[in-house]
């Protein structure tokens, strides 16, 4: 079955953004640029789940004209994936995106049963919360940046239940960034 995978960057103290949505704390790795990150995320996926707000903002974004060829190619790859948009109201936007207006759980389970690669849960926060509460996320790739921020927006704030995880992989980068890959533990409750 296809997996729904959340990729995210987090500070050591659990923040995903500064108090004013700052992302300037992201530690740059000289060996890895945004194109590499995008390629890595997309490498095992052929579909992307967006919340409506995130989709409107980022769903059809194009790279900067002056961006490197690698980044341009990565965007092209991203835009070639099947996009699903979760929205209560919007039904169509004259692209290939599929809009899901209700029955999130049933729709997602059906998509997961279909043939294909894994699915990137793009966000935003509201959709991720809904997915987590419905127990629809299979894997988390959490990139822990070696930074203490002290304040900001937390990854989760009011999730109903605890979720047990299984640590399946870890990887450290030269920049001090560590990627922790967890699977949802559905064997125990």
């Amino acid at each position, binding site marked *: 079955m296809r997996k729904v995978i959340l990729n995210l960057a987090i*500070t050591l*103290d659990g923040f995903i953004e500064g108090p004013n949505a700052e992302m300037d704390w992201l530690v740059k790795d000289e060996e890895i640029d945004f194109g590499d990150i995008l390629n890595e995320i997309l490498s095992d996926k052929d579909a992307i789940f967006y919340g409506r707000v995130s989709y409107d903002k980022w769903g059809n974004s194009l790279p900067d004209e002056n961006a490197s060829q690698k980044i341009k190619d990565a965007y092209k790859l991203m835009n070639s994936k099947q996009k699903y948009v979760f929205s209560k109201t919007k039904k169509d936007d004259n692209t290939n995106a599929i809009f899901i207006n209700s029955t999130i759980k049933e729709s997602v389970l059906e998509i997961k049963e279909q043939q294909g690669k894994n699915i990137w849960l793009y966000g935003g926060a509201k959709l991720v919360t809904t997915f987590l509460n419905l127990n629809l996320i299979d894997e*988390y790739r959490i990139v822990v940046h070696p930074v203490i921020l*002290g304040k900001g927006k937390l990854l989760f704030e009011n999730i109903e239940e605890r979720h047990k995880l299984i*640590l399946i992989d870890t990887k450290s980068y030269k920049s001090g960034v560590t990627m922790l890959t967890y699977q949802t533990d559905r064997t125990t409750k």
Partner: protein
Amino acid sequence: MRKIKVVEWLSADGFFSGVKGETDWFIMDEGTAQYLSNLFNSFDTILLGQVTYKMFSAYWPKPDPSDGNPQELTDFMNNSRKIVFSKTLDKADWRNTDVFKTITLKEIKKLKKESGKDIVIFGSGSIVSKLTKLKMIDDYHFLVNPVFLGKGKPIFKNTEAKAALKLLDSKKFECGNMILHYKADN
């Protein structure tokens, strides 16, 4: 000079306790216990904020046997020198505990210059935050447990504890715990 090291248990979503201070999600295996035991052997002094002090001083003198704490950990907690930072606490009953009313750079520097083993801080977000700001922390051990709490207490909340750290090493344990060990870039 003695080092001040921070040791924190964290959930994978970055909380250090549940909403009501729950820590029942901590998990332990042989590897984690061994790592912590080695680490604790390098300490003889514990710094605590008032909240963590109250929690620890209520627990460690008589730990619940069903929690399965190794005796050496209990001994470590009870026998080490403790310093609790509190404006309101007049005296501390837990063995070997002194109360410091304020945190001053001078006092902390003096403490670091005393002879002895290293100094550890558990929990105590406010103290870690202040000492981070004063650039008095030498390194940080975060024990990341394989669970999302979904809600809880962040270790820092609206503090000035901003710091870029250097990853020294990391270690994965069988139960899914992960140690991330950083050095402060002071």
